Protein backbone atom coordinates (compact mmCIF):
# COMPACT_ATOMS: atom_id res chain seq x y z
CA UNK A 1 0.00 0.00 0.00
CA UNK A 2 2.85 2.38 0.88
CA UNK A 3 4.61 1.65 -2.42
CA UNK A 4 1.37 2.17 -4.33
CA UNK A 5 0.74 5.45 -2.53
CA UNK A 6 4.21 6.67 -3.48
CA UNK A 7 3.57 5.66 -7.10
CA UNK A 8 0.23 7.52 -6.97
CA UNK A 9 2.02 10.59 -5.67
CA UNK A 10 4.56 10.43 -8.51
CA UNK A 11 1.79 10.10 -11.11
CA UNK A 12 -0.05 13.04 -9.51
CA UNK A 13 3.14 15.05 -9.78
CA UNK A 14 3.49 14.03 -13.42
CA UNK A 15 -0.10 15.08 -14.07
CA UNK A 16 0.43 18.50 -12.51
CA UNK A 17 3.64 18.90 -14.52
CA UNK A 18 1.44 19.02 -17.63
CA UNK A 19 2.17 22.70 -18.25
CA UNK A 20 5.84 22.36 -17.36
CA UNK A 21 6.08 19.68 -20.04
CA UNK A 22 4.66 21.94 -22.72
CA UNK A 23 0.95 21.18 -22.22
CA UNK A 24 1.61 17.92 -24.05
CA UNK A 25 -1.55 16.27 -22.71
CA UNK A 26 0.12 13.89 -20.21
CA UNK A 27 -2.72 14.85 -17.85
CA UNK A 28 -5.51 13.80 -20.22
CA UNK A 29 -7.39 10.76 -18.81
CA UNK A 30 -6.59 8.75 -21.96
CA UNK A 31 -2.83 9.08 -21.25
CA UNK A 32 -2.80 9.24 -17.44
CA UNK A 33 -5.36 6.44 -16.97
CA UNK A 34 -3.10 3.67 -18.40
CA UNK A 35 -0.18 4.89 -16.26
CA UNK A 36 -2.35 4.67 -13.13
CA UNK A 37 -3.45 1.23 -14.26
CA UNK A 38 0.20 0.21 -14.61
CA UNK A 39 0.95 1.43 -11.08
CA UNK A 40 -2.05 -0.50 -9.74
CA UNK A 41 -1.03 -3.65 -11.61
CA UNK A 42 -3.91 -3.66 -14.09
CA UNK A 43 -2.91 -1.93 -17.32
CA UNK A 44 -5.93 -3.01 -19.39
CA UNK A 45 -8.47 -1.66 -16.87
CA UNK A 46 -6.44 1.55 -16.71
CA UNK A 47 -6.62 2.00 -20.49
CA UNK A 48 -10.37 1.35 -20.62
CA UNK A 49 -11.20 3.52 -17.58
CA UNK A 50 -8.94 6.29 -18.89
CA UNK A 51 -10.68 6.22 -22.26
CA UNK A 52 -14.10 6.29 -20.58
CA UNK A 53 -13.10 9.30 -18.50
CA UNK A 54 -11.62 10.95 -21.61
CA UNK A 55 -14.96 10.59 -23.34
CA UNK A 56 -16.77 12.12 -20.37
CA UNK A 57 -14.33 14.99 -20.05
CA UNK A 58 -13.81 15.61 -23.76
CA UNK A 59 -15.09 19.16 -23.44
CA UNK A 60 -12.95 19.85 -20.40
CA UNK A 61 -10.10 21.74 -22.00
CA UNK A 62 -8.71 25.09 -20.98
CA UNK A 63 -9.43 27.58 -23.72
CA UNK A 64 -8.39 31.13 -23.00
CA UNK A 65 -9.02 31.93 -19.37
CA UNK A 66 -11.48 29.11 -18.72
CA UNK A 67 -10.22 26.34 -16.45
CA UNK A 68 -12.01 22.99 -16.67
CA UNK A 69 -12.52 20.39 -13.90
CA UNK A 70 -9.18 18.96 -12.83
CA UNK A 71 -8.50 15.83 -14.92
CA UNK A 72 -5.51 14.82 -12.74
CA UNK A 73 -7.52 14.32 -9.57
CA UNK A 74 -10.41 12.78 -11.48
CA UNK A 75 -8.26 10.29 -13.37
CA UNK A 76 -5.76 9.33 -10.66
CA UNK A 77 -8.31 8.84 -7.88
CA UNK A 78 -11.14 7.60 -10.10
CA UNK A 79 -9.06 4.89 -11.76
CA UNK A 80 -6.94 3.96 -8.72
CA UNK A 81 -9.87 3.61 -6.32
CA UNK A 82 -11.96 1.73 -8.90
CA UNK A 83 -9.18 -0.81 -9.55
CA UNK A 84 -8.42 -1.06 -5.83
CA UNK A 85 -12.01 -1.92 -4.94
CA UNK A 86 -12.41 -4.20 -8.02
CA UNK A 87 -15.24 -1.97 -9.16
CA UNK A 88 -16.61 -1.54 -12.68
CA UNK A 89 -15.51 0.94 -15.32
CA UNK A 90 -18.46 3.15 -14.42
CA UNK A 91 -17.18 3.49 -10.84
CA UNK A 92 -14.12 5.33 -12.14
CA UNK A 93 -16.50 7.77 -13.77
CA UNK A 94 -18.88 8.32 -10.84
CA UNK A 95 -15.97 8.89 -8.48
CA UNK A 96 -13.74 10.73 -10.94
CA UNK A 97 -16.04 13.51 -12.15
CA UNK A 98 -17.12 14.95 -8.75
CA UNK A 99 -13.53 14.71 -7.48
CA UNK A 100 -12.33 16.60 -10.55
CA UNK A 101 -14.85 19.39 -9.97
CA UNK A 102 -14.03 19.82 -6.29
CA UNK A 103 -10.30 19.68 -6.99
CA UNK A 104 -10.59 22.54 -9.47
CA UNK A 105 -12.24 24.66 -6.76
CA UNK A 106 -9.57 23.69 -4.21
CA UNK A 107 -6.68 24.42 -6.57
CA UNK A 108 -8.24 27.78 -7.49
CA UNK A 109 -9.04 28.80 -3.92
CA UNK A 110 -5.97 27.49 -2.09
CA UNK A 111 -3.42 27.06 -4.87
CA UNK A 112 -3.77 30.25 -6.91
CA UNK A 113 -3.08 32.67 -4.02
CA UNK A 114 0.14 30.80 -3.18
CA UNK A 115 1.10 30.80 -6.84
CA UNK A 116 0.51 34.55 -7.08
CA UNK A 117 2.96 35.18 -4.26
CA UNK A 118 5.66 33.65 -6.49
CA UNK A 119 4.40 35.48 -9.59
CA UNK A 120 4.83 38.75 -7.68
CA UNK A 121 8.27 37.59 -6.54
CA UNK A 122 9.15 37.28 -10.23
CA UNK A 123 8.24 40.99 -10.65
CA UNK A 124 10.69 41.81 -7.91
CA UNK A 125 13.38 39.52 -9.33
CA UNK A 126 13.01 41.26 -12.69
CA UNK A 127 13.52 44.72 -11.22
CA UNK A 128 16.61 43.42 -9.44
CA UNK A 129 17.78 41.63 -12.62
CA UNK A 130 18.20 38.46 -10.59
CA UNK A 131 17.80 35.76 -13.24
CA UNK A 132 18.54 32.80 -10.99
CA UNK A 133 15.82 33.75 -8.52
CA UNK A 134 13.47 34.54 -11.40
CA UNK A 135 13.88 30.99 -12.71
CA UNK A 136 13.43 29.44 -9.26
CA UNK A 137 10.28 31.47 -8.52
CA UNK A 138 8.90 30.64 -11.97
CA UNK A 139 9.41 26.93 -11.34
CA UNK A 140 7.92 26.98 -7.84
CA UNK A 141 4.88 29.03 -8.87
CA UNK A 142 3.51 26.32 -11.15
CA UNK A 143 3.73 23.45 -8.70
CA UNK A 144 2.69 25.69 -5.80
CA UNK A 145 -0.62 26.19 -7.56
CA UNK A 146 -1.25 22.46 -7.44
CA UNK A 147 -0.27 21.88 -3.82
CA UNK A 148 -3.80 20.98 -2.71
CA UNK A 149 -3.91 18.20 -5.33
CA UNK A 150 -0.39 17.00 -4.55
CA UNK A 151 -1.32 16.64 -0.86
CA UNK A 152 -4.94 15.58 -1.16
CA UNK A 153 -4.75 12.94 -3.91
CA UNK A 154 -2.18 10.57 -2.31
CA UNK A 155 -3.88 10.95 1.10
CA UNK A 156 -7.31 10.31 -0.39
CA UNK A 157 -5.95 7.19 -2.08
CA UNK A 158 -4.37 5.97 1.14
CA UNK A 159 -7.49 6.44 3.27
CA UNK A 160 -9.86 5.20 0.61
CA UNK A 161 -13.09 6.25 -0.95
CA UNK A 162 -15.16 6.44 2.25
CA UNK A 163 -12.93 9.14 3.61
CA UNK A 164 -13.03 10.95 0.25
CA UNK A 165 -16.80 11.18 0.38
CA UNK A 166 -16.73 12.59 3.90
CA UNK A 167 -14.19 15.21 2.85
CA UNK A 168 -16.32 16.26 -0.11
CA UNK A 169 -19.32 16.77 2.15
CA UNK A 170 -17.24 18.81 4.53
CA UNK A 171 -16.73 21.72 2.12
CA UNK A 172 -19.84 23.94 2.12
CA UNK A 173 -21.62 24.21 -1.23
CA UNK A 174 -21.49 27.98 -1.28
CA UNK A 175 -17.69 27.97 -1.12
CA UNK A 176 -17.56 25.68 -4.15
CA UNK A 177 -19.99 27.78 -6.17
CA UNK A 178 -18.23 30.92 -4.94
CA UNK A 179 -15.02 29.58 -6.49
CA UNK A 180 -16.76 29.06 -9.81
CA UNK A 181 -18.03 32.65 -9.67
CA UNK A 182 -14.54 33.92 -8.84
CA UNK A 183 -13.09 32.06 -11.83
CA UNK A 184 -15.43 34.13 -13.99
CA UNK A 185 -14.64 37.48 -12.37
CA UNK A 186 -10.87 37.18 -11.89
CA UNK A 187 -9.91 37.65 -15.57
CA UNK A 188 -11.36 41.18 -15.29
CA UNK A 189 -8.28 42.12 -13.26
CA UNK A 190 -5.85 40.99 -15.95
CA UNK A 191 -7.75 42.74 -18.72
CA UNK A 192 -8.02 45.94 -16.64
CA UNK A 193 -4.24 45.89 -16.16
CA UNK A 194 -3.72 45.34 -19.87
CA UNK A 195 -6.10 48.16 -20.76
CA UNK A 196 -4.30 50.48 -18.37
CA UNK A 197 -1.10 49.74 -20.28
CA UNK A 198 -2.27 50.48 -23.84
CA UNK A 199 -5.12 52.97 -23.35
CA UNK A 200 -4.97 56.61 -24.44
CA UNK A 201 -7.53 59.31 -25.25
CA UNK A 202 -7.77 58.33 -28.88
CA UNK A 203 -8.10 54.57 -28.75
CA UNK A 204 -10.41 54.12 -25.73
CA UNK A 205 -13.45 54.07 -27.99
CA UNK A 206 -12.17 50.90 -29.68
CA UNK A 207 -12.28 49.01 -26.37
CA UNK A 208 -16.04 49.59 -26.20
CA UNK A 209 -16.34 48.74 -29.88
CA UNK A 210 -14.87 45.26 -29.33
CA UNK A 211 -16.74 44.82 -26.06
CA UNK A 212 -20.18 45.52 -27.49
CA UNK A 213 -19.71 43.45 -30.63
CA UNK A 214 -19.31 40.42 -28.36
CA UNK A 215 -22.10 41.61 -26.04
CA UNK A 216 -24.67 42.23 -28.77
CA UNK A 217 -23.83 39.62 -31.38
CA UNK A 218 -22.81 35.99 -31.67
CA UNK A 219 -19.38 36.79 -33.14
CA UNK A 220 -16.36 35.07 -31.62
CA UNK A 221 -13.20 36.87 -30.52
CA UNK A 222 -11.37 35.54 -33.59
CA UNK A 223 -14.00 36.98 -35.91
CA UNK A 224 -13.85 40.33 -34.13
CA UNK A 225 -10.05 40.26 -34.43
CA UNK A 226 -10.27 39.64 -38.18
CA UNK A 227 -12.76 42.51 -38.57
CA UNK A 228 -10.54 44.81 -36.54
CA UNK A 229 -7.63 44.04 -38.88
CA UNK A 230 -9.81 44.98 -41.85
CA UNK A 231 -10.98 48.18 -40.18
CA UNK A 232 -7.43 49.16 -39.36
CA UNK A 233 -6.21 48.32 -42.88
CA UNK A 234 -9.02 50.52 -44.19
CA UNK A 235 -7.97 53.37 -41.91
CA UNK A 236 -4.34 52.89 -42.89
CA UNK A 237 -4.91 52.98 -46.63
CA UNK A 238 -7.94 55.24 -47.11
CA UNK A 239 -7.95 57.75 -44.28
CA UNK A 240 -5.15 60.29 -44.62
CA UNK A 241 -3.12 60.85 -41.49
CA UNK A 242 -3.54 64.49 -40.52
CA UNK A 243 -1.43 64.48 -37.40
CA UNK A 244 1.97 65.07 -38.96
CA UNK A 245 4.22 63.22 -36.59
CA UNK A 246 2.24 60.15 -35.59
CA UNK A 247 4.73 58.38 -33.44
CA UNK A 248 4.27 60.82 -30.57
CA UNK A 249 0.52 60.25 -30.41
CA UNK A 250 0.82 56.70 -29.20
CA UNK A 251 3.40 56.93 -26.47
CA UNK A 252 1.28 55.89 -23.56
CA UNK A 253 3.44 57.26 -20.79
CA UNK A 254 2.08 60.77 -21.20
CA UNK A 255 -1.51 59.84 -21.91
CA UNK A 256 -1.71 56.84 -19.63
CA UNK A 257 -5.26 56.24 -18.52
CA UNK A 258 -6.58 59.60 -19.62
CA UNK A 259 -10.13 59.80 -20.82
CA UNK A 260 -11.21 56.76 -18.87
CA UNK A 261 -12.21 58.51 -15.69
CA UNK A 262 -15.90 58.04 -16.21
CA UNK A 263 -15.86 54.97 -13.98
Amino acid at each position, binding site marked *: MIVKTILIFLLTFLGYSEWFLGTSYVQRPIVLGPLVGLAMGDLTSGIIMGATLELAMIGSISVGAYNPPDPVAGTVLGVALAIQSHASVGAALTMGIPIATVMLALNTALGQPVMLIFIHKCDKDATQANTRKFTIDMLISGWAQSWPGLVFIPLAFYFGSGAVEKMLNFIPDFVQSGMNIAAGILPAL*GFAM*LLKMIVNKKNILFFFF*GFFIIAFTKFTVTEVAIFSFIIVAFMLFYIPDNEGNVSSSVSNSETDGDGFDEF
Partner: protein
Amino acid sequence: MNFKPQYNRIVKKNDLQKIFWRSIPLNHSWNYERMANVGFAWALLPLLKKLYPKKKDFSQALTRHLELYNVTQYISTFPMGIAAAMEEENSLNSDFDESSISNVKTALMGPLSGIGDSFFWGTVRVIATGISLPLALQGNVLGPILFFLIFNSVHYLFRYYGTFLGYGLGTNVISEVEQSGLMGKLTKYASIVGMIVVGAMTMDMVKVKFVSKIGSTKAGGSTVQSLLDGIFPGISVLIIFGLTYWLLKKKLNPLWIMLIMLLVSIAGAYFKVLG
Protein backbone atom coordinates in the same frame (compact mmCIF):
# COMPACT_ATOMS: atom_id res chain seq x y z
CA MET B 1 8.42 39.87 -48.58
CA ASN B 2 11.16 37.62 -47.28
CA PHE B 3 10.50 35.83 -43.98
CA LYS B 4 13.79 33.93 -43.83
CA PRO B 5 15.90 34.96 -40.81
CA GLN B 6 19.22 36.60 -41.76
CA TYR B 7 21.21 36.37 -38.48
CA ASN B 8 23.42 39.28 -39.54
CA ARG B 9 22.98 41.26 -36.33
CA ILE B 10 23.00 40.11 -32.71
CA VAL B 11 20.40 37.33 -32.65
CA LYS B 12 21.78 34.03 -33.95
CA LYS B 13 20.09 30.75 -34.78
CA ASN B 14 20.97 29.14 -31.45
CA ASP B 15 19.38 32.07 -29.59
CA LEU B 16 16.12 31.27 -31.31
CA GLN B 17 16.51 27.56 -30.58
CA LYS B 18 16.93 28.50 -26.93
CA ILE B 19 13.64 30.41 -27.10
CA PHE B 20 11.99 27.28 -28.51
CA TRP B 21 13.22 25.10 -25.62
CA ARG B 22 12.34 27.70 -23.02
CA SER B 23 8.85 28.19 -24.46
CA ILE B 24 7.90 24.66 -23.38
CA PRO B 25 6.98 25.47 -19.73
CA LEU B 26 5.09 28.62 -20.84
CA ASN B 27 1.84 27.79 -19.03
CA HIS B 28 3.53 26.27 -15.98
CA SER B 29 3.19 29.67 -14.28
CA TRP B 30 -0.18 30.54 -15.89
CA ASN B 31 -2.12 32.65 -13.39
CA TYR B 32 -5.46 34.39 -13.23
CA GLU B 33 -3.89 37.80 -12.83
CA ARG B 34 -1.61 38.14 -15.85
CA MET B 35 -1.90 34.66 -17.38
CA ALA B 36 1.25 33.48 -19.23
CA ASN B 37 3.32 36.60 -18.44
CA VAL B 38 6.10 34.98 -16.39
CA GLY B 39 6.46 32.12 -18.88
CA PHE B 40 6.79 34.53 -21.78
CA ALA B 41 9.42 36.62 -20.00
CA TRP B 42 11.32 33.49 -18.92
CA ALA B 43 11.53 32.22 -22.50
CA LEU B 44 13.07 35.50 -23.68
CA LEU B 45 15.33 35.92 -20.64
CA PRO B 46 18.72 34.74 -22.06
CA LEU B 47 18.19 36.73 -25.25
CA LEU B 48 17.31 39.90 -23.35
CA LYS B 49 20.43 39.44 -21.26
CA LYS B 50 22.50 39.19 -24.45
CA LEU B 51 20.82 42.24 -26.03
CA TYR B 52 21.08 44.46 -22.96
CA PRO B 53 24.45 44.10 -21.24
CA LYS B 54 23.61 46.95 -18.87
CA LYS B 55 21.76 45.66 -15.80
CA LYS B 56 19.25 48.54 -15.82
CA ASP B 57 18.27 48.04 -19.46
CA PHE B 58 17.97 44.28 -18.99
CA SER B 59 15.75 44.64 -15.96
CA GLN B 60 13.55 47.10 -17.83
CA ALA B 61 13.20 44.74 -20.80
CA LEU B 62 12.36 41.77 -18.59
CA THR B 63 9.73 43.79 -16.72
CA ARG B 64 8.23 44.88 -20.03
CA HIS B 65 7.40 41.25 -20.80
CA LEU B 66 5.76 40.66 -17.42
CA GLU B 67 2.57 42.36 -18.56
CA LEU B 68 -0.50 40.17 -19.17
CA TYR B 69 -0.01 37.76 -22.04
CA ASN B 70 -2.02 34.84 -23.26
CA VAL B 71 -1.60 32.77 -26.39
CA THR B 72 -2.16 29.17 -27.42
CA GLN B 73 1.03 27.68 -25.98
CA TYR B 74 1.69 25.51 -29.05
CA ILE B 75 2.28 28.59 -31.23
CA SER B 76 3.69 30.82 -28.47
CA THR B 77 7.11 30.83 -30.16
CA PHE B 78 5.72 32.89 -33.03
CA PRO B 79 5.01 36.06 -30.98
CA MET B 80 8.23 35.33 -29.06
CA GLY B 81 10.19 35.43 -32.33
CA ILE B 82 8.56 38.73 -33.27
CA ALA B 83 9.30 40.13 -29.80
CA ALA B 84 12.92 38.95 -30.17
CA ALA B 85 13.26 40.85 -33.44
CA MET B 86 11.75 44.01 -31.95
CA GLU B 87 13.92 43.82 -28.83
CA GLU B 88 16.98 43.41 -31.06
CA GLU B 89 16.01 46.52 -33.00
CA ASN B 90 15.34 48.38 -29.75
CA SER B 91 18.78 47.49 -28.37
CA LEU B 92 20.50 48.79 -31.54
CA ASN B 93 18.37 51.84 -32.26
CA SER B 94 17.90 54.47 -29.58
CA ASP B 95 14.98 56.08 -31.49
CA PHE B 96 12.93 52.90 -31.29
CA ASP B 97 9.57 53.33 -29.56
CA GLU B 98 9.59 50.71 -26.78
CA SER B 99 5.84 50.79 -26.30
CA SER B 100 5.44 49.37 -29.82
CA ILE B 101 6.72 46.02 -28.51
CA SER B 102 3.81 45.73 -26.08
CA ASN B 103 1.39 47.05 -28.68
CA VAL B 104 2.37 44.53 -31.34
CA LYS B 105 2.34 41.67 -28.81
CA THR B 106 -1.12 42.66 -27.59
CA ALA B 107 -2.49 43.08 -31.09
CA LEU B 108 -1.37 39.54 -31.97
CA MET B 109 -2.66 37.98 -28.75
CA GLY B 110 -6.33 37.67 -29.66
CA PRO B 111 -6.05 36.55 -33.29
CA LEU B 112 -3.25 34.06 -32.57
CA SER B 113 -5.10 32.54 -29.62
CA GLY B 114 -8.29 32.35 -31.61
CA ILE B 115 -6.65 30.58 -34.52
CA GLY B 116 -4.40 28.43 -32.30
CA ASP B 117 -7.15 27.35 -29.91
CA SER B 118 -9.54 26.29 -32.62
CA PHE B 119 -6.80 24.57 -34.64
CA PHE B 120 -5.20 22.61 -31.79
CA TRP B 121 -8.17 21.93 -29.55
CA GLY B 122 -10.85 21.87 -32.17
CA THR B 123 -8.99 20.10 -34.96
CA VAL B 124 -5.75 18.32 -33.97
CA ARG B 125 -7.06 17.04 -30.63
CA VAL B 126 -10.33 15.91 -32.12
CA ILE B 127 -8.55 13.98 -34.87
CA ALA B 128 -6.12 12.39 -32.37
CA THR B 129 -9.00 11.43 -30.06
CA GLY B 130 -11.10 10.13 -32.92
CA ILE B 131 -8.34 7.75 -34.03
CA SER B 132 -7.21 6.56 -30.60
CA LEU B 133 -10.36 6.43 -28.46
CA PRO B 134 -12.00 3.40 -30.14
CA LEU B 135 -8.75 1.44 -29.65
CA ALA B 136 -8.38 2.53 -26.03
CA LEU B 137 -11.99 1.67 -25.17
CA GLN B 138 -11.15 -1.93 -26.16
CA GLY B 139 -8.13 -1.89 -23.86
CA ASN B 140 -5.58 -1.64 -26.69
CA VAL B 141 -2.39 0.02 -25.46
CA LEU B 142 -1.86 1.57 -28.92
CA GLY B 143 -4.78 3.92 -28.20
CA PRO B 144 -3.10 6.17 -25.61
CA ILE B 145 0.26 5.95 -27.41
CA LEU B 146 -1.25 7.07 -30.73
CA PHE B 147 -3.14 9.91 -29.04
CA PHE B 148 0.03 11.23 -27.47
CA LEU B 149 2.15 10.88 -30.62
CA ILE B 150 -0.33 12.35 -33.11
CA PHE B 151 -1.06 15.42 -31.02
CA ASN B 152 2.52 16.14 -30.05
CA SER B 153 4.13 15.62 -33.46
CA VAL B 154 1.88 18.38 -34.86
CA HIS B 155 2.37 20.45 -31.71
CA TYR B 156 6.17 20.42 -31.75
CA LEU B 157 6.37 20.98 -35.50
CA PHE B 158 4.44 24.24 -35.09
CA ARG B 159 6.24 25.21 -31.92
CA TYR B 160 9.72 24.77 -33.46
CA TYR B 161 9.21 26.44 -36.84
CA GLY B 162 7.03 29.20 -35.35
CA THR B 163 10.11 30.64 -33.64
CA PHE B 164 11.99 31.23 -36.90
CA LEU B 165 8.92 32.39 -38.80
CA GLY B 166 8.15 34.94 -36.09
CA TYR B 167 11.70 36.26 -35.96
CA GLY B 168 12.05 36.38 -39.76
CA LEU B 169 8.76 38.21 -40.05
CA GLY B 170 9.75 40.55 -37.25
CA THR B 171 13.18 41.53 -38.64
CA ASN B 172 12.26 41.93 -42.29
CA VAL B 173 8.94 43.65 -41.82
CA ILE B 174 10.25 45.92 -39.10
CA SER B 175 13.30 47.16 -41.00
CA GLU B 176 11.26 47.72 -44.14
CA VAL B 177 8.55 49.52 -42.23
CA GLU B 178 10.99 51.69 -40.37
CA GLN B 179 12.77 52.89 -43.48
CA SER B 180 9.48 54.14 -44.85
CA GLY B 181 8.64 55.90 -41.59
CA LEU B 182 5.62 53.71 -41.05
CA MET B 183 6.61 52.51 -37.59
CA GLY B 184 4.66 55.16 -35.71
CA LYS B 185 1.60 54.52 -37.81
CA LEU B 186 1.89 50.77 -37.37
CA THR B 187 2.19 51.13 -33.61
CA LYS B 188 -0.87 53.33 -33.51
CA TYR B 189 -2.94 50.92 -35.56
CA ALA B 190 -1.62 47.89 -33.67
CA SER B 191 -2.83 49.53 -30.48
CA ILE B 192 -6.27 49.98 -32.04
CA VAL B 193 -6.49 46.29 -32.91
CA GLY B 194 -5.25 45.56 -29.39
CA MET B 195 -7.97 47.70 -27.84
CA ILE B 196 -10.74 46.08 -29.89
CA VAL B 197 -9.48 42.60 -29.03
CA VAL B 198 -9.07 43.40 -25.33
CA GLY B 199 -12.63 44.73 -25.31
CA ALA B 200 -13.90 41.63 -27.05
CA MET B 201 -11.96 39.27 -24.78
CA THR B 202 -13.18 41.09 -21.67
CA MET B 203 -16.80 40.55 -22.67
CA ASP B 204 -16.08 37.00 -23.81
CA MET B 205 -14.12 35.71 -20.82
CA VAL B 206 -15.32 37.68 -17.82
CA LYS B 207 -18.42 35.97 -16.47
CA VAL B 208 -20.69 37.49 -13.85
CA LYS B 209 -24.36 36.92 -13.14
CA PHE B 210 -26.58 38.63 -10.55
CA VAL B 211 -29.12 35.99 -9.64
CA SER B 212 -31.07 37.66 -6.82
CA LYS B 213 -34.79 37.84 -7.42
CA ILE B 214 -36.72 41.11 -7.43
CA GLY B 215 -40.25 41.65 -6.24
CA SER B 216 -42.41 38.81 -5.03
CA THR B 217 -41.15 35.40 -6.00
CA LYS B 218 -44.71 34.31 -6.74
CA ALA B 219 -44.97 36.78 -9.60
CA GLY B 220 -42.33 34.78 -11.51
CA GLY B 221 -38.61 34.47 -12.01
CA SER B 222 -37.43 37.99 -12.68
CA THR B 223 -33.81 38.34 -11.61
CA VAL B 224 -31.58 41.39 -11.30
CA GLN B 225 -29.62 39.95 -14.22
CA SER B 226 -32.63 39.96 -16.57
CA LEU B 227 -33.36 43.53 -15.52
CA LEU B 228 -29.76 44.55 -16.23
CA ASP B 229 -29.73 42.70 -19.54
CA GLY B 230 -32.84 44.68 -20.39
CA ILE B 231 -30.77 47.88 -20.26
CA PHE B 232 -28.15 46.30 -22.51
CA PRO B 233 -26.39 42.93 -22.55
CA GLY B 234 -22.95 42.96 -21.00
CA ILE B 235 -23.69 45.75 -18.52
CA SER B 236 -22.94 43.48 -15.56
CA VAL B 237 -19.50 42.64 -16.98
CA LEU B 238 -18.91 46.32 -17.67
CA ILE B 239 -19.80 47.23 -14.07
CA ILE B 240 -17.39 44.65 -12.63
CA PHE B 241 -14.69 45.63 -15.12
CA GLY B 242 -15.20 49.35 -14.42
CA LEU B 243 -14.92 48.80 -10.67
CA THR B 244 -11.75 46.74 -11.12
CA TYR B 245 -10.22 49.39 -13.36
CA TRP B 246 -11.17 52.10 -10.87
CA LEU B 247 -9.47 50.20 -8.02
CA LEU B 248 -6.37 49.77 -10.19
CA LYS B 249 -6.29 53.48 -10.95
CA LYS B 250 -6.57 54.12 -7.20
CA LYS B 251 -3.20 52.25 -7.09
CA LEU B 252 -4.60 49.39 -5.02
CA ASN B 253 -2.30 46.35 -5.05
CA PRO B 254 -3.64 43.77 -7.56
CA LEU B 255 -3.26 41.06 -4.94
CA TRP B 256 -5.75 42.91 -2.73
CA ILE B 257 -8.13 43.32 -5.65
CA MET B 258 -7.87 39.58 -6.21
CA LEU B 259 -8.63 38.86 -2.55
CA ILE B 260 -11.63 41.21 -2.67
CA MET B 261 -12.87 39.36 -5.76
CA LEU B 262 -12.58 35.99 -4.00
CA LEU B 263 -14.40 37.21 -0.90
CA VAL B 264 -17.12 38.93 -2.91
CA SER B 265 -17.62 35.75 -4.94
CA ILE B 266 -17.99 33.53 -1.87
CA ALA B 267 -20.25 36.06 -0.14
CA GLY B 268 -22.21 36.41 -3.37
CA ALA B 269 -22.72 32.66 -3.48
CA TYR B 270 -23.70 32.54 0.21
CA PHE B 271 -26.34 35.27 -0.07
CA LYS B 272 -27.36 33.96 -3.51
CA VAL B 273 -26.65 37.34 -5.13
CA LEU B 274 -24.14 36.00 -7.65
CA GLY B 275 -24.32 32.76 -9.55
